[in-house]
Each structure stands twice: as structure tokens, then as C-alpha cells.
């Protein structure tokens, strides 16, 4: 068990190393020096100022040395200061992190909470009415681009019918409300963005869980359990679902990058002030330190999620908990 966890941890570390290498390479795609303000600041025409900046940022050192210095700072989560407001990038990211994390967790909850029961119900009555009706709908959902659906929902439900707020995090004047009222208000604002983030993966996951449960239901141990007289409901929810848990976890881990990527567009459409919006603003202001910080941090988040899924395997699959030599998944 410890060996398995250690192995996954080491893999994650090597992945982390690769992420920093790629991000560092992207950083050096910047034309000329990444010394800030070079294009706009008239001071930069003074060679002494340029040299001072080069010394300050270590741009005269060889690339490996620069990389080592940069990684050292990144490990301390020190991404420098924003070129826009000169606040530390870390603080700018941290204040927005909970909003994106919350939105993504809401989406993930929506995906798992709807897709697994739906897939299970469809698998339990294969070719039944629900199975037949849900297949084309799920298929359709999977093909619709999320930002188009976001625009349509915004235009119809928010602007047309006024059922949901158009955009933003809170209503005007919400600061003075009671805590439950404020929480409900934010949740209400998050409903449309979370749905737009979720529905595509939800459709995919529902089809995926249906297929996996069908396979599990056809397995010998389920037939044996049925022969012992277990009820169908318990068979499905207890035995088949447990057997299908590993692929579910794998897929949920793999879905994270998609979710995080998707939040750039969705957050922008719904003016959700999270990391995606921050990235978008930083791209337009060429705020390099913030862009690099966000790129590293978002991949760190995804890495953490994948690692979490890996470790949850231990819960889902008792075979992994055996000492070495056991069958590995």
C-alpha cells in the first residue's frame, strides 16, 4: 500500500518537473527579454537601466541557472509581482482561487451526481424507455460547444426570463445580507456557469458509466450474487458500482484539465471573477508573471486532483492494499 502510494507520488513529482520545464520554455518564447515594461517605458532606452533589470532578473546567467532560480521561487509559490498593479502574483491568484475551485467542484458534483445514477438507471433497464430516451439527448449535449450553450442560456434564461442573474458573483448590495442569504445568492449566480462547465462531461460520463456498469453486471461475480438471491437494486448499487469505481475515478481525474480549461471561457462569459477571468485579463495586459503563475498553478491543481484520484484507488480497490506482489490495476 505504501509502495503504491510512494510510486504515484514519485510519478507526480516527475510530472511536476516536466510542467515547470515546459512553462519555463514558454516563458522564453517571449520576444526579446522578459524584462518588464520594455515596450512602453521610455526609461528602457537607457542601457544602464536595462542592465540593472537584467541583473535583477538574472537574465545574463546561463539558461539552466535561470531555470534553477525560477523553479526555486516557484516552489516557494513566489511568482513575482504583477505588471498591472504590482501586487504579488501569489496574492492575486489566492484571492481568486476559491471561486474557481468552488465553481469546478460544483460542476464535478453535478457531473457525478447526475451521470452515475443516470448511467446506472439506464444500465439496469437496458433498452428500456429511459435508456432509449437518454441516449440521443446525451449524445446531443456532448456535441454542443459549451460557450455557445452559455450564450444561449444567458440570452434566454437570464436576459429573457430573468430566472438567473446575467453574470457576476453576487447581487448588488449583497454585502449587507445574512450569511445564508449571501451563500444562496452566490450559488444562484454559480448555477448557469456550473451547468455550462458540467453538461458536456456529464453526458460523456453518463454514457461511460452505463457502459461500465453493463460490463460489470455481466460479470461472473454478479451472476453468482444473483444466484444467491440478492435483489437487483443491491446488486447494481453495491456490487456492480464498486467494481466500476476504478474507471470512474480515472475518468474523473482525467476530466479535471478539461474543466479547468473550460473555466477560462465560461468565467469570461458569466463575468465570474475566478482564475479563468484572471488569465484572460492578464493575457490582454501581457502580464507575464501572472500568466506564468496561473499556468503553473493550474497544472499543479490538476496534478493534485489526479494524484487524489490515484490515492482513492486504494479505497476503491482492496487488491492494491495488499503488500507487494498483488495484482496492480
Amino acid at each position, binding site marked *: 500500500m505504501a509502495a503504491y502510494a510512494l510510486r504515484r507520488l514519485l*510519478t507526480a513529482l*516527475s*510530472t511536476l518537473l*516536466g*510542467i515547470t520545464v*515546459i*512553462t519555463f520554455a*514558454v516563458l522564453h*518564447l*517571449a*520576444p526579446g527579454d522578459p524584462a518588464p515594461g520594455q515596450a512602453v517605458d521610455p526609461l528602457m532606452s537607457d542601457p544602464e537601466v536595462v542592465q540593472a533589470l537584467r541583473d535583477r532578473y538574472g537574465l545574463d546567467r546561463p539558461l539552466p541557472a535561470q531555470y534553477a532560480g525560477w523553479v526555486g521561487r516557484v516552489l516557494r509559490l513566489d511568482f513575482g509581482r504583477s505588471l498591472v498593479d504590482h501586487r504579488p502574483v501569489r496574492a492575486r491568484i489566492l484571492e481568486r482561487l476559491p471561486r474557481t475551485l468552488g465553481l469546478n467542484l460544483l460542476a464535478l458534483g453535478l457531473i457525478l451526481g447526475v451521470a452515475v445514477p443516470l448511467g446506472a438507471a439506464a444500465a439496469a433497464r437496458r433498452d428500456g424507455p429511459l435508456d432509449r430516451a437518454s441516449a440521443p439527448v446525451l*449524445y*446531443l449535449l*456532448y*456535441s*454542443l*460547444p459549451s*460557450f*455557445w450553450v452559455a*450564450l*444561449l442560456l444567458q*440570452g434566454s434564461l437570464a*436576459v429573457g426570463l430573468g430566472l438567473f442573474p446575467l453574470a457576476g458573483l453576487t447581487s448588488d448590495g449583497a454585502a449587507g445580507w445574512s450569511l445564508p442569504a449571501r451563500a444562496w445568492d452566490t450559488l444562484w449566480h454559480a448555477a448557469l456557469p456550473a451547468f455550462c462547465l458540467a453538461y458536456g462531461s456529464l453526458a460523456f460520463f453518463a*454514457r*461511460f458509466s452505463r*457502459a*461500465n456498469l*453493463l*460490463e460489470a453486471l455481466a460479470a461472473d461475480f454478479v451472476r453468482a450474487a444473483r444466484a444467491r438471491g440478492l435483489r437487483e437494486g443491491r446488486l447494481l448499487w453495491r456490487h456492480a458500482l464498486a467494481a466500476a469505481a476504478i474507471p470512474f475515478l480515472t475518468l474523473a481525474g*482525467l476530466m479535471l*484539465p*478539461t474543466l*479547468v*480549461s*473550460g473555466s*477560462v*471561457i465560461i468565467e*469570461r*462569459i458569466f463575468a465570474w471573477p475566478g482564475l479563468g477571468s484572471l*488569465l*484572460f485579463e*492578464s*493575457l490582454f495586459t*501581457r502580464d*507575464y508573471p501572472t*500568466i*506564468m503563475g*496561473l*499556468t503553473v498553478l*493550474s*497544472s499543479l491543481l*490538476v*496534478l493534485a486532483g*489526479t494524484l487524489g484520484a490515484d490515492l482513492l484507488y486504494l479505497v476503491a480497490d482492496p487488491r492494491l492494499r495488499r503488500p507487494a506482489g498483488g495484482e496492480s490495476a
Partner: protein
Amino acid sequence: MSPARLARLGRWLLAGLALVALLAPLLASDRPLLLAGEAGLTFPALGEVAGIGWLLERPAWQRRDWTREQAGERWRLRAPIPYSYRQVDLEARLEPPSRRHLLGTDALGRDLAARILHGAAISLQVGIVATAIALAVGVLLGALAGWAGGAVDFAVCRTVEIVLCFPTFFLILAVLAFRPPSLPLLFAIIGLTRWPSLARYTRGEVLRLREGAFVEAARAAGSGPWRILWRHVLPHAVTPALVAATFQLAGAMLVEAGLSFLGFGVPEPLPSWGALLSQAQGTARWWLVLFPGLALSLAVAAAQLTGEGLRDRLDPRLARL
């Protein structure tokens, strides 16, 4: 509908889309397709079709003096949609769909139907070239990893994991922030972030096939290892990657649309579907939101359905996904 019929529908849609993309300069053009004038018959619209410049070496065909005022015109054959994608008409801004403008006009009075047709060319072009790059890189690295094993295999597998772990959209946007947008850059950057799963499939197949009797036979017949890989193993091993690439086509088109929607994709005035949706956002006119999105969804669904059909046919083992 049965899966097989859906797949056929997808193939037809995709083929239709490709045809529309190829013929867009003839389907929607402010120039006449045929113009009979003093100089004889000319083909003014043909000048806009990419890749057939060599056809136009006959000077008479190249003539572009096709306006009404030109003397001696006898008759002309207009394009089905007689507007180009960049023809601004400030008198006809934000017109709803009508007989004159089938799908309406945008905020600059440009014909939406013409822009969507030309957008098909952009979308498909980015999708196909990016997927081809991803396929080339993925198959090459995957085959190398599976065949060589050892350190090469380790390096490729780690790289695959790293790239899969990136929220690639963040990475792409970061690169686009540092470099001016252009079509070749989009091809490269979308392609280079989409190869890992293709490499995984190919590596798995090569690993499975390398112990096969036919490999042993080829070795016994004196073939070198690289010749065996190229001639005997790879033709069998690319099937899953090819199937996956069809799905990647849909994904690449979505990424391009998303980038263009954010304003980091295809540069103006090229009418990408994502850019059309982005321009629609501020105007709140239903036709500007509805039609480009429908076109994009249809294209994505066509690629998906084609992929499912291919998979069911070529690789039933994967069919459960």
C-alpha cells in the same frame, strides 16, 4: 436511429462540410461566377479560390474588372450568396434574416451566411491540419516507445503524462499571448497539445503486436528491426490512433472556436465560427448567436459520429466507450 445509420449521417455531413469549405469562395462571393463581356467569358469569382492560381494564367480569366459600370456586359451569373465574407455594408447593419440576407447581417452589415460558409473552411482547415500534426507526432513517438522500449519508452510515457496533465487551453493561451496570432501558429500549437492520447494508443498496439508470429517470421526472413516496424507492425498499429484522430478532429475544431471566441484565434477579418460567436455577444441578436453555433455543433457532431462509426467498424474492442 441505429448507430450504423447515425455514422453514415455523420460521414455525409462531414463530406458535405468539406465540400462547402472547398467551394466557399464560389458559394458566397460578391463577384459573379460567370461574366460575359467584351473580352469574352470571364470567371471573376475563381480568383478567390485558393490553390488554383495556376489555372488563372490565361489573362482573360484573371480579369477583375467585373463591376456593373464596366461597358459591354451582356450577362452575368451570380454566386448563390452574392456577398463576400468581408463586404461591409453600413446601410444594412444587424438586419434579421430576410430574402436579401438569408441568415441576416452582423454589426458591420456583413452577410452572416457568407461568413458562416467561409468559416467552415477555416474551422475544417485548423481541425484537419492540427489533427494531422497530432497524428504524425503521436504515432511516431508511440511506435518508437513501444518498439524501442527501455529509456525511450520511459521518456515518452512521462512526456505523455505531463502533457495530459496540463490544462492545455491555459498553455495554448499563454503561448498565444507571447506570439502574434496566425494560422500556422494555431495549427502547430493545437496539434502539439493533442498527440498524447494518440501516442498511448499506438504504443499499446505496438507492444501487443511486437510479439506476434508475423514479426518473428519477418525477422527470420532477414528484415531489420526498423523495416519490420515500418512495413509490418505500424500498418496494423495505427488503427486505434486513426479512430481517435477522428474524435480529435472534433476536439481541435472546438479548441479553435474557443480560442477565436476569446480573441486569440484566427486573426480578423477571417470569419472563424468562434469569432462570429464572440462578435455576436455584444449585439444580443438571436441570429448572430444561433447560426454560427449551429454550424459549429453540426461540424463537431459530424466528426464525432464519423469517429464512432469508424471505431465500431475497425475496433470493436473500444466500442463500449
